[in-house]
């Protein structure tokens, strides 16, 4: 990180310090966490901008994937995690396919979102999906109009998923409970309601 760059000479280091990007709250462990969770090599980025140039979200918002990669490299955790643009990535992987440094910027975003969730930063609709799956096994559950249509097609009214076999739902709930996901979703949505 910028802070560690030096000439091994305290006097010279002091003199040159303002030539480097220097932020007090920079956190080197942020880069390490992003790279571990995202399973990618963010530090290889040379800021060419191919990712932003490939991004369908860039032309219609202030979201810049290159900026987020830079924030990872510089350890600017708070700046990255509190920026609402973090949620404008459609995870289309165009940037990943084109990055000349073999980085997966998409997975950098996914890692940052995982870290943001630990700070209770998460769009509310994501939490509603968790609640739906906890209840029925499906993020988009069946309904009566659809049941009637299925019957017309000669399909069972409920598909042979957790819908027709609800005995599988407790297993799903155990997995979600293991990660306290339902608990956290309920809490965050309740706080929202207040």
């Amino acid at each position, binding site marked *: 990180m910028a802070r560690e760059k030096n000439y091994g000479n305290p006097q010279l280091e002091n003199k040159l310090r303002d030539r480097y990007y220097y932020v007090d709250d920079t956190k080197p462990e942020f880069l390490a966490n992003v790279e571990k969770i995202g399973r990618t090599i963010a530090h290889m980025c040379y800021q060419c901008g191919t990712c932003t140039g490939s991004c369908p979200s860039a032309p219609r918002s202030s979201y810049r994937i290159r900026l987020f990669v830079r924030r990872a490299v510089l350890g600017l955790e708070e700046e990255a995690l509190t920026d609402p643009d973090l949620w404008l990535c459609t995870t289309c992987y165009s940037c990943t396919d084109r990055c000349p440094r073999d980085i997966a910027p998409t997975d950098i975003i996914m890692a940052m979102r995982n870290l943001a969730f630990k700070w209770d930063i998460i769009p509310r609709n994501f939490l509603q999906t968790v609640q739906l799956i906890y209840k029925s096994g499906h993020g988009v559950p069946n*309904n009566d109009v659809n049941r009637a249509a299925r019957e017309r097609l000669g399909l069972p009214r409920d598909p042979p998923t957790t819908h027709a076999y609800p005995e599988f739902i407790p297993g799903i709930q155990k997995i979600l409970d293991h990660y306290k996901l339902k608990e956290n979703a309920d809490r965050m949505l309740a706080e929202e309601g207040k």
Partner: protein
Amino acid sequence: MSGNKHQYAFFLGCIAPNRYPGCEAAAIRTSAKVGIELLPLKGASCCPAPGAFGSIDLNVWYAMAARNVVLAEQMNMDITLICNGCYKSIWEVNHILKHNDELRDGVNEVLKEIDMEFKGTIDVWHLAELYYDPAICGVDKIRASVTRPLTGTKIAVHYGCHLMKPKKERHFGDTENPMWVDELVEALGAEAVQYRNKMQCCGAGGGVRGFDIVHSLDITNEKLINVKEVGADAITEVCPFCQLEYDRGQIEIAEKFGIKYGLPVLHFNELLGLAQGMSPQELALDLHAIDCKPFLEKIL
């Protein structure tokens, strides 16, 4: 796969069975006509949605997807599916866990609580790639199965993102201008038209549709402009979530932006069903938000 018979556990996901059941019905019937048998994967759940779950906690995403894979392992059968989002979850988690001991151990610790274990004994396929694969089916066999050619129609193929990208972790080759689904469409007698920025995302993924619908629809709108420009009669895709974004999205675009396209959106399986002689009723095309009639009039 067991023996010479091409049998697969059919992973349904959510949007196909619960919003566009015609995709499910079409998959079962069209595959049977080319010698592929789809068996129910009992007790499967949401894949789970890679945008929402992956963003919250990748570890939960791994564990939940692994549970679905294990159900197929217990049947001793490969999985096939008809949705790019499901492919991302089921194929990718299966792939990651096969090659990453640390993550697999973590997942198995959780699965142990429900008496399951991920063993890594099966593979996962998108039905479209099985249709394209000459060892399983192939374009010629698809062509031979057609009884009502879609002659005279122009169709724009939307490949979507999560089937083929990221390319270095997949096996589909070029992701800038792929043609294999176009070849499948042409085998049905239609003309597969080329349009600007073909590989651009539909705009729905990553939770963006739920987080900021206007942003999401603006991306969809750009695709629709490009498709309309080349005079396509319909869009086809291999992902019910892309289908939802284009189909219901056109209604939302009309409401929010005041632009009307009236462009029918059909899953490749629905298109194949029509070409094999299935009726619009048998495909529940009436559940589509955008009326398919202008397209159907050209072929019926």
